[in-house]
């Protein structure tokens, strides 16, 4: 009798929360379905394609796609040839883009945030002005910059007023480091740097730096993203209690000292966020290349994202295109992890430093105070 009752009791009752489970999943269903179908599933499918030789005919799951293992990856990374060459150049270009954009945009947006954080009149106007470029589309901005930086355009006209001759910007494939080196007489002929190759690109070319054309994109990136990051920094700055700044002022800290010793350490989390977002964003640059240069001049504005697109959609080499996308994914994950590692907060209390007084301080009033 008792076990029978117990059995009845053990049967699951919906209770007051019963409907919630059903409703919960129902509410989430559209989101989960769409995420699953259009994000998770595609990744799986693309992974398959990257291991195949599909050329765009029919379905990639059908008869036209054959398993080729790591062939696509090998072609990109280790087998000398055009694929590897393009890939290497794309990596190099994007690398310099990241190298320049992330520090510059972080510094500029922090600078703007500090300026805008003062209690000055019209600060709202300035904040709006700096943020506005972030609201526009990449297409509009790219067209704008192509216009400004055309060889006979606005920027070069301005430079001519300063007595300088501007380069031909979007048509100039010379790496800026090369240009600097040429000032000192160095060049590419012969030598170790010209003869050794990595990913299809000579060491000398690896050291070229971003091309002049790429620099236009670099400036464009800083122009469009500084507003967003300025807002992030503003939020971080406003989290610093004003009394801490006042205490520092009383302690005799100048504005610069306050910035260096108080402000910057206290916005470390924001700094980390901005750098991480910057890394993730810069490694993915695509829209501007598609609209502005499609990789020219001389492949110096080619980026992995665009190369992936071009290889697949224009050359129907889908396997290679997918492989490039996954390698890019790996690069982004790598950099994110490295940043996280480098900015990890050392929270452990360090070993006690010993403060040995090296001699009596006769004049100090402190010594006369009993503890």
């Amino acid at each position, binding site marked *: 009798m008792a076990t029978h009752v117990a059995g009845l009791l053990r049967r699951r009752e919906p209770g007051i929360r019963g409907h919630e489970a059903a409703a919960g999943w129902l509410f989430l269903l559209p989101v989960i379905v769409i995420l699953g179908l259009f994000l998770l599933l595609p990744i799986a499918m693309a992974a398959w394609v990257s291991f195949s030789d599909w050329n765009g005919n029919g379905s990639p799951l059908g008869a036209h796609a054959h398993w080729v293992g790591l062939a696509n990856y090998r072609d990109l990374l280790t087998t000398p040839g055009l694929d590897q060459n393009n890939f290497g150049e794309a990596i190099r270009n994007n690398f310099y883009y990241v190298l320049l954009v992330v520090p510059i945009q972080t510094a500029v947006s922090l600078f703007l945030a500090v300026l805008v954080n003062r209690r000055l009149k019209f600060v709202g106007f300035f904040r709006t002005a700096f943020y506005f470029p972030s609201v526009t589309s990449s297409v509009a901005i790219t067209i704008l910059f192509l216009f400004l930086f055309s060889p006979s355009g606005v920027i070069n006209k301005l430079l001519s007023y300063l007595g300088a001759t501007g380069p031909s910007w979007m048509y100039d494939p010379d790496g800026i480091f090369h240009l600097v080196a040429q000032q000192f007489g160095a060049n590419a002929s012969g030598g170790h740097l010209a003869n050794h190759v990595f990913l299809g690109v000579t060491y000398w070319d690896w050291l070229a730096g971003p091309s002049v054309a790429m620099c236009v994109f670099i400036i464009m990136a800083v122009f469009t993203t500084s507003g967003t990051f300025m807002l992030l920094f503003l939020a971080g700055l406003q989290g610093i*209690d004003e*009394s*801490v700044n*006042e*205490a*520092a*002022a*009383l*302690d*005799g*800290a*100048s504005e610069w*000292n306050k910035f260096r*010793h*108080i402000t910057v*350490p*206290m916005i*470390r989390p924001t700094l980390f966020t901005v750098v991480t977002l910057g890394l993730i964003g810069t490694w993915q640059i695509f829209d501007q290349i598609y609209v502005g240069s499609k990789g020219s001049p001389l492949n110096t504005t080619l980026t992995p994202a665009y190369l992936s697109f071009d290889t697949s959609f224009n050359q129907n080499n889908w396997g290679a295109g997918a492989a490039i996308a996954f390698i890019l994914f790996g690069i982004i994950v790598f950099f994110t992890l490295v940043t996280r590692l480098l900015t990890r907060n050392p929270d452990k*209390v*360090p*070993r*006690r*430093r010993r*403060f040995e*007084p*090296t*001699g009596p*301080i006769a004049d*100090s*009033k*402190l*010594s*006369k*105070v*009993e*503890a």
Partner: protein
Amino acid sequence: MAAITFDDVTKTYGDGYRAVSDLNLDVKDGEFVVLVGPSGCGKTTALRMIAGLEEITGGQIRIGDRVVNNLPPGDRDVAMVFQNYALYPHMTVAENIGFALRMRKVPKAEARQRIQETARVIGLTDHLDRKPRQLSGGQRQRVAMGRAIVREPQVFLMDEPLSNLDAKLRVQMRAEIARIQRQLSVTTVYVTHDQVEAMTMGDRVAVMRKGVLQQFDAPQLLYEQPANLFVASFIGSPAMNMLEGTIEADGCRVGSAVLPIPSALTAFGGKHVAVGIRPEALSLAAGGDRPRLSGRVQTVEALGPEQLAHVEVEARPVLATEVLEGLVDADDAHELAELVDENRATVVARLEASATVRPDDQVELAVDVRRLQFFDLDTGLACR
């Protein structure tokens, strides 16, 4: 070490609000002065003007001989303990204390010594490597003190440093601060809204209200000779009883009692005045010829060493704003005015623990006429 002088100092904000009006104050070298008053009275503004954290709109502030109106905070040789401590959260205790030394490029060896000494004074030698978030409230407060002490400045400024601590800790720290200040003999200006704190810690206390200085005297003088209605009500706990009285030929009539008046008032027959009677000036009448107030006991609070009896007497209470503000925070004052009955006053009498009083008892309270205070109801000033 230096004296601080306020010369007609005024602070007006952009919208016209006057936080401090024509403040004249002189703090002697080595003195511990407390600025006290209800919120919004201007005490913190005055303190921040000494520090240089607020612009001075009018008048002059001098530290020592120097006029410091336009001197940046870092150059005034003034140290401040903030209400929320304002510790540098990313630095250790040692780094917090040593920051000012670092800014002035004090050599590392000397800095280390001074930090160590300060840590000893504030009792945190074992915590020098901790960060503020690893410390308790009391410890953080001591770090804030240490930061000020290590600089050996001319002036200490303290902005309600104990208000974030619990009651017991507060009492403890009060004594600590007073002791440290005495031994270092640094000129100190201390801001608080707690009049008990003010009375126990200050050499002299400045009572402020709505930006205007009310009285600046030693605590005992503030207590025994308040200059106006506000000071009389603000200082002392429980508050001074305020009753309306009328000047008559033979004295001042308060309810059914007639109280003797100082000679200055004899000429003002018919004038209404406020009579201030401290709770300890009332006792259970037991014969004798002292004037009495009779009434019914409302409540009795047993405090251990004494009792406080709230007695409803037939007299009119004084409902002037200064009195009400002295009792409660400014916002509550209006509500209180509406609640109080105009014709019945409740006085608080401090009685011995052995006295037998119960609620609803009819009692006669004898008034100690030597300790009466009279105030002009038109001006609020004391009549002497």
